[in-house]
């Protein structure tokens, strides 16, 4: 991994900003899709694709690559955008999101784009598959790591906890779960719909190591991943606190943006705001 110099950090922040702009443009083009969670995970997906992962965008099926799974498939616009800016495919292809014949399906499908690692959308299934990948690495003495991004609300799914239990049993310290803790789901606040707290205690009780960080702070997230990678003998979860809709002020903190896209005027406003922010980021450099 490269060292996180101030210049590198500025570059990553600019890339996260561009990732958000890609999300807005693709959602506008699609006319449907999930805005809030996609935007709030732009920093984390940019960190993964441009800093953390051991991968090769030109050779997505390289057997030694780190695996990154997106369990909550509905925020796939952020993954597509981060992948495009990392060089997996042309940025213009983002405008084909959810269109007939596109590789960019409404929910991600591995068979259309192998770099997605798996097919997701039905919630609560990513960590279970990641557990299998991490266990396979242990069985075969492979060095690759498996990272699984999950939403907070999918902790309401039983299968997710079957995976938490199993990863604890096998002491999978090559497995890391990153929770997008934005406290929202379709019908409202997670703590109103089905409370998840105390979430960290639940993981500790299942023999996991728990870290918490600001998921919208690039440096803090990367430093937390570094610390988490040093843990031996147990799987690690990072509870990344995020602001739904992050970067677009009229969406921030509003759960009603969970499952809808911006219209043309809203997208223009969002892109103006993001571009102004990008200029501030690069002016600091």
């Amino acid at each position, binding site marked *: 991994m490269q060292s996180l110099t101030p210049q590198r950090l500025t570059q990553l922040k600019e890339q996260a900003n561009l990732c958000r702009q890609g999300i807005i443009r693709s959602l506008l083009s699609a006319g449907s899709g999930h805005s809030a969670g996609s935007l709030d995970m732009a920093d984390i997906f940019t960190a993964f694709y441009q800093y953390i992962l051991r991968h090769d965008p030109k050779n997505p099926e390289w057997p030694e690559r780190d695996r990154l799974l997106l369990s909550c498939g509905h925020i796939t616009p952020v993954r597509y955008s981060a992948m495009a800016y990392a060089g997996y495919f042309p940025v213009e292809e983002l405008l084909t999101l959810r269109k007939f014949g596109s590789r960019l399906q409404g929910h991600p499908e591995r*068979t259309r784009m192998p770099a997605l690692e*798996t097919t997701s959308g039905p919630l609560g299934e990513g960590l279970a598959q990641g557990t*299998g990948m991490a266990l*396979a*690495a242990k069985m075969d003495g492979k060095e690759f790591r498996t990272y699984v991004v999950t939403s907070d609300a999918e902790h309401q799914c039983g*299968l997710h906890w*079957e995976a938490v239990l199993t990863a604890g049993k096998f002491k999978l310290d090559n497995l890391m779960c990153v929770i997008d803790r934005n406290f929202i789901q379709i019908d409202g606040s997670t703590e109103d719909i089905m409370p998840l707290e105390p979430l960290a205690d639940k993981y500790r009780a299942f023999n996991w190591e728990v870290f918490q960080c600001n998921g919208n702070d690039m440096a803090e997230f990367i430093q937390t991943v570094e610390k988490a990678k040093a843990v031996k003998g147990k799987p690690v979860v990072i509870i990344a606190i995020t602001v739904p809709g992050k970067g677009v002020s009229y969406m921030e903190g509003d759960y009603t943006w969970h499952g809808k896209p911006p219209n043309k005027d809203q997208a223009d406003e969002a892109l103006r705001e993001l571009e102004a922010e990008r200029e501030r980021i690069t002016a600091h450099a």
Partner: protein
Amino acid sequence: MPSANVANGVSMHLAPLDDPKSIKQVPTRNGFGEGLLEAAKANENVIGICADLSESTRFLGLKEALPDQYIEIGVSEQMLVAMAGGLASTGKIPWIASYAMFNPGRSWEQVRTIMALNETNVKIAGAHAGVSVGPDGATHQAVEDIAIMRVIPHMTVVVPCDTLQTKKATLALTQMHGPVYLRFAREKSPIVTTEQTPFEIGKAQTFREGKDVAIVACGILLYNALIAAQELAAEGIDCMVINNHTVKPMDARAIVDAAKRTGAIVTVEEHQVHAGMGSRVAEILAQQHPTPIEFVGVQDQFGQSGDPSELIEHYGMGTSAIKDAVRRILKRRTR
């Protein structure tokens, strides 16, 4: 001496059915355990993942002989499928086994998304299928599993007729790349094939030639079909018997050829008559060669506790029920 019967150019070695006392009885699940162990010895990527049923699903042989290729995850059937998907993505060939009622019964959505849509090389062994599970009762008697698996794109569905064929099917399905459902039963059942009987995925087998009615069966009821055909011969009714072990992709040509030859079909399966093997036969014939059909199977009911043989009789899948179906279809035969 095994009797040899030549059909479609293939020599079918069958056990001598004219002497029922000589027929050995072994559970089909034994064949799975033997096949899995043989496949795992030949290829270290073949692994077994068990959801707390190692003895009854016949995982014990693998567990004891090759513990590094055996994973125990407890009572979590959705996890069984999802975790196997992850392992398969790295090149492993996971066989996952539970009772059919729980896997794929409980795990259907994971099977559809992670195994089929995602095209992973995961193999499901569905044990304890059918009412012949016996005393455990309806909760444990899967009679809907063929339906929910055959409807999934990319899925291969195989229901072997005895323990020897189950072993051959396990080995063949391990070699095949892609998602698979292998269904077998709990109780001892007659071994109707021999070591020499061929097995090929997707290729139905004519176990008895005949010109009046074609009995198309799968699973352990194949024996009842053969006995029914033998007894009907004494009444002058000449039945063909087809072992239709691959429900998906079904051997449409063999089904159409049988319909053309006999003009009357009886399907036999230990499953709901709705949406099972017989329904697929009907779909093929409705489109390619409309033919009267009688369906022997569970008639839109749940099972209950009892002895396997009395349950098979009660739910209309015994030899006499098959003979009745043959007599009924003869009256509806169009030529």
